[in-house]
């Protein structure tokens, strides 16, 4: 559990603003913070990790107070046991992948944990390379692995997937979900990608100019209604075609292009490039076995 009650004056791109957050994150939750740039998302993560000092308030994790202005408590980042994946990954260029991980490990004598993480994140072939020789997706996996090696209670992810193309993104989203569950982490993710948020997070906070303006379950927030469909996929609208009385909406879901029949009422306000959720409620799905060639 992370109890946040923080207040900080920030010099944003749009002038001064006050970041005011009061929220309690239950243990094991994957929380996403969503909002325009300059809304205070990264600053929030920096304050939780101890890299930035709030002006007022307190931060408590389980039964330990990390920051309390009134009691003059401010644990340095070194004592906070947080895994942080930076937007630029911040891999150490002078070290190989393996060295990056062992450097992060707190227990230098027993490195089995490091080898476990290398296996889990499928980094075996890359472990002797230096970060400069890795692709963006590979660097991201190393950054995530390095954060996990510390065995943190809390994982902070600052737009970790924003620089990657969609195919690698989907794969890494699966990694994220896997490690979040496997290590029983409390994770805070910053993301701009609605499909990603719906896929990954339990709860979403929407920040605007330093304040929470909305929060809830991601499908409630982004679709404005509760969908009980058994199948839910998110994608991007590629094309909307009128066909006599109906419309055909072409949607890109992950890497598949799908055509969906829609009524005039459904396409109202829908434009090309919009994020949509495709859900099916009424009929039973059919399963075909795919024979391996």
């Amino acid at each position, binding site marked *: 559990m992370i109890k946040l009650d923080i207040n900080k004056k920030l010099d944003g791109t749009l002038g001064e603003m006050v970041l005011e957050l009061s929220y309690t994150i239950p243990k094991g939750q994957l929380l996403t913070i969503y909002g325009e740039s300059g809304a205070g998302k990264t600053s929030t993560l920096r304050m939780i*990790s*101890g*890299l930035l000092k709030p002006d007022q308030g307190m931060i408590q994790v389980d039964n330990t107070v990390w920051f309390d202005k009134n009691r003059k408590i401010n644990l*340095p*980042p*070194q*004592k*906070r*046991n*947080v*895994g*942080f994946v*930076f*937007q*630029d990954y*911040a891999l*150490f*260029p*002078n070290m190989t992948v393996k060295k990056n991980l062992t*450097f*992060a490990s*707190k227990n230098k004598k027993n490195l089995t944990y490091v080898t476990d993480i290398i296996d889990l994140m499928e980094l075996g072939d890359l472990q002797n390379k230096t970060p400069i020789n890795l692709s963006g997706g590979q660097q991201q996996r190393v950054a995530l692995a390095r954060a996990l090696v*510390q065995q943190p209670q809390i994982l902070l992810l600052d737009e970790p997937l924003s620089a990657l193309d969609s195919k690698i993104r989907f794969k890494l989203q699966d990694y994220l979900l896997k490690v979040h569950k496997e290590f029983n982490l409390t994770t805070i993710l910053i993301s701009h990608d609605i499909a990603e948020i719906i896929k990954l997070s339990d709860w979403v906070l929407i920040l605007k100019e330093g304040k929470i303006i909305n929060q809830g379950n991601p499908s409630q927030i982004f679709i404005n209604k509760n969908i009980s469909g058994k199948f839910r996929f998110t994608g991007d609208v590629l094309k909307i075609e009128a066909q006599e009385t109906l419309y055909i909406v072409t949607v890109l879901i992950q890497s598949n292009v799908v055509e969906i029949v829609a009524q005039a009422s459904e396409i109202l306000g829908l434009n090309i490039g919009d994020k949509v959720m495709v859900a099916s409620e009424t009929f039973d799905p059919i399963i075909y076995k795919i024979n391996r060639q």
Partner: protein
Amino acid sequence: MNWTPLILTFQLALITTLILLVISIPLAYWLVQTKSRFKPIIETLVSMPLVLPPTVLGFYFLIAFSPKNTFGIWLNEYLGIQLIFSFTGLVVASVIYSLPFMVHPIQSGLSSLPSSLSEAAFVMGKSRSSTLFHIQLPNIKASLLTGIVLAFAHTIGEFGIVLMIGGNISGKTKVASIAIYDEVESLNYAAANKYSAILVVLSFCILLFVYIINGGYLKRFWK
């Protein structure tokens, strides 16, 4: 030919460079991360030798270290050091005179590193010194090399300050640049030419070495 002035020059440059390296790393680190109001003052003081004629520095050192003045007397009585007309005095003066040549490259190297690198190390539980020695310094090797070589080369090239504070004592303070002046004064052009030619060739080699390493030429050749 008398090799003593050249040997003395290299001894001076080597000792000065080593001392500068030890002083400049913490100083540059402090300058990069401080938010102190005194930062501009310290930065100015570090850079002063770049603009001042070396004779000005030499003159004030001469006054300050003089065995007739309080500071000079104190040095002599308590530490037993006499800085005027001695090799130790030359080292002290050279350290101050070449300070910007070591501090500036290290400072700009450190500030060009993304702050997320050291922040990532802090979040991992690493102390400031561990982060400096394992992450920051190994990633600014080129800047360190530039600082070392420039400080070394600049100390070889000293004249004014050395003459003011060290005088011209053979085997003690007569470095190559002074020896050249001395030989010219006594119209001994052949000896002056030998010293000068050696300095020209050495300086060229040292600077070439820096440009080759920092330009990555070596890496390209060896691959």
